[in-house]
């Protein structure tokens, strides 16, 4: 077994995500666009915006993960790259995880890093807490991307798989979204929420690669 194919898959996915339309700008634009629509929809009352801001950003992060993941494995099944990955000695779960991680780094992580800026637009007080929140978005985004990857792998051979991914993945996003939103409140009983958020991300990292591998073997048949 060698790790070389895993790095190759990682680099390929990185290049793919970067080249597919203005690099990280595209998901960033989606994320910001979704978030900016909200004040237009619900009004500009600062207190309201401050209350819903963190939640809106979680929703936008979840949606953008679904949008970016739609083609993550589909292109590979179409051009035969998937068969090649599966013939290498590297475990398919590691390859799937590497590809998902690459997409997280190019699309999910930039969104998390941008979140303090958007939080300010949602009338949050400027503080170091916003940076902590950015870390929470990053951890939660990791879980979103891995569960979304399961949906993407399962629907790799399905035309218009994007809608299917959302239906499959959204229930799996629930714990992460809840723990993430709770980590950003100071309500009593939410002290453990950051740890639980991290646990839900670790759980996704532990389980999702194997489900993705099983789904990719199916897609290659």
């Amino acid at each position, binding site marked *: 077994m060698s790790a070389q194919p895993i790095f190759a898959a990682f680099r390929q996915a990185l290049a793919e995500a970067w080249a597919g339309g203005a690099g990280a700008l595209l998901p960033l634009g989606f994320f910001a666009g979704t978030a900016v629509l909200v004040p237009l929809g619900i009004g500009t009352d600062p207190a309201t915006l401050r209350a819903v801001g963190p939640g809106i950003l979680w929703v936008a992060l979840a949606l953008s993960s679904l949008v970016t993941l739609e083609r993550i494995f589909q292109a590979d099944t179409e051009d035969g790259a998937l068969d090649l990955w599966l013939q290498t000695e590297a475990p398919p779960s590691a390859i799937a995880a590497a590809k998902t991680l690459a997409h997280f780094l190019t699309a999910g992580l930039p969104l998390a890093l941008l979140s303090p800026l958007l939080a300010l637009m949602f009338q949050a007080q400027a503080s170091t807490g916003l940076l902590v929140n950015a870390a929470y978005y990053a951890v939660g985004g990791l879980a979103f991307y891995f569960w979304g990857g399961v949906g993407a792998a399962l629907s790799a051979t399905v035309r218009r798989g994007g809608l299917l991914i959302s239906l499959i993945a959204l229930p799996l996003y629930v714990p992460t979204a*809840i723990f993430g939103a709770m980590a950003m409140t100071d309500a009593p009983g939410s002290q453990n929420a950051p740890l639980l958020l991290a646990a839900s991300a670790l759980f996704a990292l532990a389980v999702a690669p194997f489900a993705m591998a099983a789904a990719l073997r199916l897609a290659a048949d």
Partner: protein
Amino acid sequence: MFSWFANPHRFLSLSNWLAPACYAGGLILMIWGMWQGLWVVPKDDYQGGDIMRVMFMHVPTAWLAMASYSALAVMSFIWFIWRHEVADVAAKAIAPLGAVWTAICLATGSIWGKPTWGTWWQWDDARMMSVLFMFFLFLGYMALRAAMDTRQKAARAGAILAMVGAINVPLIHYSVEMFTSLHQTASVITSSGPKMSAVYLWPLLSCALGQSLLFAGLVQTQMRTEIRDRRTAKLRAQLMAGG
């Protein structure tokens, strides 16, 4: 042990009498339980008066929503490991029926909620939210199966998704429970409420067992339909090849 059931012929001859028996038993138990629940048992003022009679319809559907998803996951697991076709036929039959029961559970729970909580939809109720997400899991499972172009692929993809969903159900439930404990509102019926007295217990058990039997009967009929459909498809293919 599974191999014994895995034979479609054995399943067909078993369900030939078991399905009607399930229907008969289920109907009798449901009718007796609902008659008791609506006409006989006294109302419980501590549980909001007559509205608690809704329990004899609602609680069995909640139990079946949970049980049917577990059954779906177990069948998927059996199919995934041992590739017994009957297990896949069962999983395919369970999913839409489970979705229907989950939807009934949500609808009846919502109607129960209106006079008790004063709202049709209570975001703060952990059970309601968990059942809602289970409904989505069922929908995703059915949509995924429908999107696959061959039966084998549908079975494999469905099994993977059902198992991933099943290991997430406890986590979803735990997170929702924690979420709702943050904003507790006063509700008449709580999970730590008063212990149910025996007057209500027997009709409730009867309704739950009755609905379960009815559900089991419907699953068997659906499985028989699926097995026949597969046989028809095989014959059609033979005809095409021969003619």
